[in-house]
């Protein structure tokens, strides 16, 4: 896909996020929107997958370690054809296959259940290890929050991945700067992030998580690097794309009301129109 196509798709993914959380009257828009470009790149460009055959055993895997941002993953999966986009509106409803946090038995395309922070990365390490044990080529991707990396388990997993030279593993940290209680540096600073991963024998790459050239280059470098796992620290804006949610901790885990929903969709429609125009030039 071209960058413009990716941008347009990411904008659709953002609409799905806002629509599903609005419909659920609960959920986590902020961290879903900050990672929307990453979800889009992974599912539309990077990963070797088949939406018609979600359990294909040689597929690349993705573990959403920051499971609360399930609306972002669900929207990417729906837009990629795993299930109808219309179903995003059933998010968090009684009986829906779109649970509040990812459930691998319920949702096509979800490779691992998650929601308790710090645990998904270990499962991703296990998948990468399985590929090595079975001499398979599939790659494993996992997405963590910058608050999430305060969990000690993240570093236990990282130590293991580095020690075992799991070069088929990419750990992505969404550095949107915010967790629930405020800015990550105020709550319990996680910085420096890149040097920490380097100390655990990772290759660390810093990128702008809203720039598809940088995302593309980082994954290319990860694939070319042998003998160590890669950490991509992506600098993002929490709530990206919806003006009133941007860089605002208050929109971590809150649904927009009807009026706010209309404003949010208008913001995204405007971006869509601008992207259309850019395409005509």
């Amino acid at each position, binding site marked *: 896909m071209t960058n413009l196509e990716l941008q347009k798709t990411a904008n659709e993914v953002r609409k799905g996020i806002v629509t599903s959380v609005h419909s*659920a*009257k*609960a*959920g986590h828009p902020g961290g879903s929107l900050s990672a929307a470009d990453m979800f889009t790149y992974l599912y539309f460009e990077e990963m070797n997958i088949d939406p018609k055959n979600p359990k294909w055993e040689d597929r690349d895997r993705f573990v959403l370690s920051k*499971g609360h941002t399930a609306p972002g993953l669900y929207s990417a999966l729906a837009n990629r054809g795993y299930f109808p986009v219309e179903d995003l509106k059933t998010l*968090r*409803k*009684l*009986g*829906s296959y779109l*649970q*509040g*946090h990812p*459930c691998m038995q319920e949702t096509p395309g979800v490779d691992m*259940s*998650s*929601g*308790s*922070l*710090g645990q998904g990365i270990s499962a991703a390490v296990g998948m990468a290890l399985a590929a090595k044990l079975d001499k398979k080529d599939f790659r494993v991707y996992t997405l963590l929050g910058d*608050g*999430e990396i*305060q*969990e*000690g388990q993240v570093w236990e997993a990282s130590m293991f991945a580095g020690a075992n030279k799991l070069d088929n593993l990419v750990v992505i940290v969404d550095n949107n700067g915010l*967790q*629930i*209680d405020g800015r990550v540096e105020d*709550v*319990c600073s*996680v910085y420096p992030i890149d040097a920490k991963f380097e100390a655990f024998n990772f290759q660390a790459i810093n990128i702008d998580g809203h720039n598809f050239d940088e995302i593309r280059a980082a994954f290319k470098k990860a694939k070319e690097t042998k003998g160590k796992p890669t950490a991509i620290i992506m600098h993002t804006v929490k709530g990206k794309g919806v003006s009133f949610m941007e860089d605002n901790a208050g929109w971590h885990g809150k649904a927009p009301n009807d009026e706010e929903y209309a404003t949010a969709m208008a913001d995204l429609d405007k971006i869509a129109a601008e992207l259309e125009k850019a395409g005509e030039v």
Partner: protein
Amino acid sequence: MADVKKIATRESYGNALVACAEDFPELVVLDADLAGATKTGTFKKAYPDRHIDCGIAECNMTGIAAGLATCGKIPFISSFAMFAAGRNFEQVRNSIGYPHLNVKIGATHAGITVGEDGATHQCNEDIALMRTIPGMTVIVPSDDIEAKAAVRAALEMDGPVYLRFGRAAVPVINDNADYKFEIGKGVVLKEGADVSIIATGICVEGAMGAAEMLKADGIDAEVINIHTIKPLDEELVVATAKKTRKVFTVEEHSVIGGLGSAVCDVLSEKDPTKVTKIGVYDRFGESGPAAALVEKYGLDSKGIYAKIKENM
């Protein structure tokens, strides 16, 4: 019913911490990036110097609390029940339980009334986990008044205490002049001769409703609120069993290891009686509105009533 006051016990918890701050100068509150949801934010606002945010690192928070307690502080650690009891279990057991340190655990968002967040966040196992730790006191308040009294009582005693609070607003039911909270003492809310309904936490209200419905059928139910699961009020449990010979337990928790099991443990030894456990039947929760889940899992008055009728 519209004018019944409703308040979530997590809210009561936050308010109680503030209310106790002056009387207990050694009280400090530890939090793991959930100050808003657990309502410890209320305390943080009033006493910023005595609130410590440990970040998203519950196990480390538990160890820090243990260290603080060895130096004379009275730490209240706070998170969702899933993490406070679940993720932390071994830290609580070995760093707080074994050395019998004076740490209090304020666990909010217990049970299925977490609602939309779904199974990963709905802890139906915490009572079971905490009850197995020697020397641990386990309290499950049923409303605002009981929750506040429990926080104070926990601070007044020496030793580890686990307090279980809910996310959803619940009616105030203990608003009467005679109400007195004492750790380890159950409360008889209604005397009766035909069946005993022993409930805890948010299920106490449902049990009272079920008793009303049973009355219409000519069944006289005794309703007991057990706010302290451990140490359990064995005397009261045995006495009500002797009286009615039909015991029902009700809890927003797995039927494995919770109140029902605690009651069975006592009765099987002291006065074997048939006990029907009403709770979450060995399954995970799911996403949905809290009230809809309570109904689906049969923990509202109607569900409790139906289960009792079925097992009379």
